[in-house]
């Protein structure tokens, strides 16, 4: 590596040590050409948000790749339907690129309808669909008229922004699906936005809410079914969990359905307890507040002694974080703090200025903060800061292991639910397992020979 810190000059604005002052970090912009970015694209963003809707058909209009790469990769669990775990594509070929792919899309929808009875089909238009001039809005309109179901276009060419743009496209599709002709009466339930039921986390949160007496109307989108989603406008409150992807939808629902929202996080004991109390107060029911207090007390008494057992193994260790959104990064920093661990490096793919502002206040002065990092940067800073564990996603795992750094997947490949009180226990157990595995003894032995 020519440059010791492996930083492209163009990238310097996107990296900072938290003592720096000034205008803050450069973020929410396109990646530098030539960078080995860990980032995905608009289609990826749209797909990951909508994919957990279990009884929807997800039809990718484009060449085969985009359908192959997203086939059943998100560990979103379903309580019933399994249709979303199949991969549907128009598999565009050269002739389609020359003569247009509209006919093929129409035929593909017909073929789905010939053997299945979906309630909604999402049509993802990938990179070349707009370029070859397919009018997918018209195809969707005609299909809706012909079959009497919802066929919703999700225009998500990869080049049209970042993954975050894709989240917006997905939110627009959800709005299109749930907006009723006449606004219904409100019930006293809430919607959960931005939980994707990875490893069953939606079920944990729903169970908590049931315990404190709050009814859930719609899960958006973890373990969601179309009919449940359509009830979303009747909720009195929206709980926004993955703020990066879902704040946009929450704002739209606030405007269109007069549903206020609060941001919540269920990662870590502190955030889970705070969130439950804020939900209780927002619902405003005295009984709910009482039950929430009691439930939190009970869970804390159960969980904290167990966590303390891990604490002696974790205390003083250094954590590095590289995740998709800023909100998750913030929760993780707090969670490491609960374990007595120090976060020495933190980066996100799509964090906002506000997120980075909060992050810089949560970490030590010498911690490194990065936006849209590449592997060389992650390597350089993990080494420099002496990280003991990295929390990240699929592409970061082998990097950490090659460096001899422990790892925990907090993304699609998470092995256990990491949300709520039991999730915090799982998280502590997992990082303890990875950091204190006997494998490090063997590796240390070999390296010392």
């Amino acid at each position, binding site marked *: 590596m020519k440059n010791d810190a492996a930083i492209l000059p163009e990238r310097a604005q996107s990296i900072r040590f938290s003592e720096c002052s000034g205008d803050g970090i450069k973020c929410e912009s396109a990646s530098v050409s030539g960078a*080995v970015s860990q980032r995905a694209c608009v289609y990826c963003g749209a797909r990951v948000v909508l994919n957990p809707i279990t009884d929807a058909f997800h039809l990718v209009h484009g060449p085969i790749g985009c359908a192959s790469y997203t086939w059943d990769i998100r560990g979103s669990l379903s309580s019933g339907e399994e249709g979303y775990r199949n991969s549907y594509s128009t598999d565009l070929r050269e002739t389609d690129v020359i003569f247009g792919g509209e006919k093929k899309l129409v035929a593909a929808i017909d073929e789905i309808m010939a053997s299945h009875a979906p309630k909604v089909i999402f049509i993802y238009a990938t990179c070349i669909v707009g370029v070859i001039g397919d009018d997918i809005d018209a195809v969707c309109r005609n299909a809706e008229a012909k079959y009497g179901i919802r066929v919703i276009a999700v225009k998500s060419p990869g080049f049209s922004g970042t993954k975050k743009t894709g989240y917006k496209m997905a939110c627009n599709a959800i709005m299109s699906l749930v907006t009723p002709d006449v606004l219904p009466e409100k019930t006293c339930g809430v919607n959960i936005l931005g939980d994707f039921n990875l490893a069953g986390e939606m079920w944990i949160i729903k169970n908590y809410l049931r315990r404190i007496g709050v009814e859930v109307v719609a899960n958006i989108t973890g373990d969601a079914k179309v009919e449940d989603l359509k009830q979303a406008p009747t909720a009195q409150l929206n709980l926004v969990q993955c703020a990066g992807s879902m704040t946009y939808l929450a704002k739209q629902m606030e405007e269109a359905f007069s549903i206020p929202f609060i941001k919540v996080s269920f990662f870590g004991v502190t955030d889970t307890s705070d969130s439950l109390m804020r939900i209780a107060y927002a619902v405003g029911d005295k009984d709910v507040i009482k039950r929430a207090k009691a439930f939190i007390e009970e869970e804390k008494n159960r969980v904290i002694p167990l966590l303390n057992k891990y604490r002696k193994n974790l205390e003083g260790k250094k954590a590095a974080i590289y995740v998709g959104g800023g909100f998750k990064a913030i929760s993780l920093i707090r969670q490491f703090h609960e374990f007595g661990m120090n976060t020495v490096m933190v980066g996100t793919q799509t964090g906002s200025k506000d997120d980075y502002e909060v992050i810089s206040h949560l970490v030590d002065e010498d911690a490194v903060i990065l936006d849209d990092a590449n592997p*060389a940067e992650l390597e350089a800073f993990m080494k420099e800061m002496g990280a003991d564990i990295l929390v990240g996603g699929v592409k970061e795992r082998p990097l950490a*292991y090659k460096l001899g750094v422990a790892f925990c997947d907090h993304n699609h490949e998470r092995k256990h639910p990491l949300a709520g009180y039991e999730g915090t226990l799982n998280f502590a157990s997992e990082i303890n397992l990875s950091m204190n595995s006997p494998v490090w003894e063997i590796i240390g032995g070999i390296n010392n020979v």
Partner: protein
Amino acid sequence: MLELTPKKLSDRSTLRINPIKTCQPVGAMYAALGVHQCMPHSHGSQGCCSFHRMFLTRHFKDPAIASSSSFTEGASVFGGGSNLKTAIKNIFDIYDPEIIAVHTTCLSETIGDDLSGYIQDAKVPEGKLVVHTNTPSYVGSHITGYYNMISGFIKYLSESTGEKNGKLALFPGFVNPGDMREMKRLMKLMGTEFIMLPDTSGVLDAPMTGNYTMYPKGGTTIADIRDLGNCEMSLGLGELTSEFAADTLEKKCKVPYKTLPLPIGVENTDAFIMALNQFSKNEVPYEIEEERGQLMDILLDSHQYTHNKTVAIFGDPDTVLGMAQIVLEMGMIPKYMVTGTPGAAFDRKAAALLEKFGVEGCTAKQAGDLFELHQWIKNDPVDLLIGGTHGKQVARAEDIPLVRVGFPIIDRYVHSYMPIVGYKGAIRLAELILNALMDRQDRDCEDEDLEMVM
């Protein structure tokens, strides 16, 4: 799971469900990773590069490095020339590879980017190289992209100086690093001097050292790619994968070529060894004869457990054909053979294979998908499934054991280190297949039939 797959076959001419292929660029990226100190570069949207790296990482459980032109709205309208120019500068400035191997995507192909022109105009530092290949995602499959990238290296770099180097040029086919290692081992045992392109061993199965290096020790060197033009002859393993590259080398440098099936199973490995024997004129050493003899021993010892068992094989064309060969050699029947990669040659080769063994009633299909294979199995089941991870849903739904072979395998470890080629690879396959069938027998039999000795 998969209750959506109806038993009744319906006419499906446009809709692709559960593919057995992916797009060209990921194949090109894999090929480029098999060149020493090479940065694969994806000329398209950022997601492509990210998806391909993720896909390769999930299979190899190793970092897969590549850069992207990161197309924006502007690039999609005005062309990606300036993105590529910036990318080339940035990559050499910061990641410092010896060579950048650019491949295109559906987007850059559709808007008609002129890669040759862009690369000619780019500022490339002294002594460094940039090559490219066209990999339109809407043609062929990842296999097509793999051989296109190999051909791209040859077109740019290979030269005939007029002086032969006495070496064999080997195109290994779309196989794992473990297979490439085995091919190299056999060539060394046969005393054959060779140049292999690509060579992902030592790159995607690199050892853990406590350091991360963007360019591990493995990979074909640039000097060797140049020298390919001076080889006596080239041997393309995997006829449907390697012929294009061998043909490119013949056209450019007049190196005659021969193609053979992937050396999976007895007969295919024999053919590979004999080709090496003819090339090097060296006797087959006892070490190889011994391995072959061990394989014979194993096939004989176990034959009653495999005879007449039916198998469905899916995956990449040459891998499926190779697996069908060994399956037939083990006395089993490859009832269904499906590849997602389009090309009528697959059907012809499969038919010839069945005829050679005198087996009837089997179905082979190119450009097929797993959904259809699942429907066939529902109508007429098999004893064993052989293919990549994506078959696990079918295996579960129909309660059929799955032997994981091919690409991608994203739910198991170690596989990419171990060969399926050569006699050693055949021994390994025999063990995998026998274990799957015999574990099933142990699981399914009545208590009184549980055998301690098998």
